[in-house]
């Protein structure tokens, strides 16, 4: 870990920047609050100015000049191309598959990209931890063309199998989405503070395809609750550029 002493950025910053880079201009992104919102707004500030941000509170094309403090922050409405009702968001815009990327967080994520934000523990009626629940995520995960997950990685949160499927990823493997008739491709990208995972094209199991600069494969494996496979051609995430770091810090500082 000699590299860490030289780093001028945190692993959270690397995560947000790596997540932002995954977005490309013109995409329509359904944005969850927190890490996804930071990444999506950073992308708009850097390389993807014409990214279309959609928030479930009812805004199409929000262009906030600071990070929204909540999904209902007034700045999302004030800067939007259109403000619509919540039923309309889900029925007219999400459900028919008009959104390219669903950008989600997760409390617990498993080997096949299934997401749990409902309960920790296998007894739903008497959970170890009661989490907030589904929100918009089940249908975001079903209907967006692709799902990107951005989440801090740990053995506790990256598990063999989630306790509760709040948002369906790839189930127990390849082909399950098609069988269920889910229109979108599901989670195609998982970005953490350590690296990037993608589903194996054959099995849909999440495979480490990229480590952030200064992170070792062992570190990622130690922070994963299953026997994480590594892609044959493992890449290293280029470190944040000055411009990216500055944009991120300005965004976070803006009030």
């Amino acid at each position, binding site marked *: 870990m000699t590299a860490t002493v030289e780093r001028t950025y945190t692993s959270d910053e690397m995560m947000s920047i790596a997540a932002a880079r995954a977005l490309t201009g013109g995409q329509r992104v359904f944005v969850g609050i927190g890490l996804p919102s930071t990444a999506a707004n950073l992308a708009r500030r850097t390389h993807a100015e014409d990214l279309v941000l959609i928030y479930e509170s009812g805004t199409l094309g929000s262009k906030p000049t600071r990070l929204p403090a909540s999904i209902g922050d*007034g700045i999302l409405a004030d800067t939007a191309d259109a403000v619509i009702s*919540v039923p309309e968001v889900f029925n007219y815009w999400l459900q028919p598959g008009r959104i390219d990327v669903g950008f989600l967080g997760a409390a617990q994520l498993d080997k096949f990209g299934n997401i749990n934000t409902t309960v920790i523990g296998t007894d739903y009626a008497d959970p170890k931890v009661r989490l907030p629940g589904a929100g918009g995520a089940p249908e975001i995960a079903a209907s967006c063309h692709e799902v990107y997950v951005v989440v801090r990685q740990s053995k506790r949160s990256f598990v063999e199998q989630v306790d509760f*499927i709040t948002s369906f990823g790839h189930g127990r493997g390849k082909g399950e989405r098609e069988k269920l008739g889910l229109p979108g491709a599901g989670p195609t990208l998982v970005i953490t503070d350590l690296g990037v995972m993608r589903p194996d094209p054959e099995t849909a199991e999440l495979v480490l395809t990229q480590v952030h600069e200064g992170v070792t494969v062992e570190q990622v494996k130690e922070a994963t609750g299953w026997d994480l496979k590594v892609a044959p051609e493992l890449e290293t995430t280029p470190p944040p550029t000055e411009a990216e770091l500055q944009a991120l810090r300005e965004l976070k500082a803006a009030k």
Partner: protein
Amino acid sequence: MAEITSLRDAVAQLVHDGDTVALEGFTHLIPHAAGQEIIRQRRRDLTLVRMTPDIVYDQLIGAGCAKKLIFSWGGNPGVGSLHRFRDAVQNSWPVPLEIEEHSHAGMANRYVAGASGLPFAVLRGYRGTDLPKHTDTIKTITCPFTGEELAAVPAINPDVSIIHAQRADRAGNVQMWGLVGVQKEAVLAAKRSLVTVEEIVDELTPMPGQVILPTWAVTAVAEVPNGAHPSYAAGYSERDNEYYAYWDSIGRERDSFQRWLDEKVFGTEAATSDHGEAPLVDADRVRVSRKTQEVAQ
């Protein structure tokens, strides 16, 4: 025609023990003052309905007003957990809380069905998730034209729906704008409704993005300035983000919550021309927790 009345009288007349009650407002225009008035009047055995039970329902649940919660996302947005909600679910304190859990898409469509006078709504939802295993108000239905199977959810028709809006005129016509969430549907789905407003005016100047509820679609209107605090009313107030963090310190322990109840709810009168709990001074915020738990909404 909506009756223009006080918050106290409106809650006394419209909200009864055992009712199904929806307080809506999707992060914007949350009817906090009305929620606290329900606590103050010590209603019991309510079935509370709300897409995003946040602080307003943490307060009602912690005060023992609710026997059941129908919802799709329960958290303190941007801060973390609702401790009173967790304590009720996990420890039945102060009373047991039954839950009925949906997704936002499902809840929104349940209100739409309720507003439309239909017994159910159809959506592409819940597929592959564990929700239908635990929520018996999620069923499947087959399209009579294509044979495709879709999800069906029953209408929500609350006994009372309560929302906060920017303005009403003296005839009781209600105007709101900005993020309007599912409030129109919640009011139209309900048997009775109460709208608290920032102000009652002579005339409703048209606003871009406005939603109008005609007076004959509303039961009662009460003027409660700042009645959404710590939420906000676009054009009138800003969201008090610090209060959300501060609430974590209040709601975390039963004692601190009880003290808050005694002082800020039972120790005050119903909000009338000024909302009971004014924005807090910094001195009140000694135990603000910064622990955040960021999960998908």
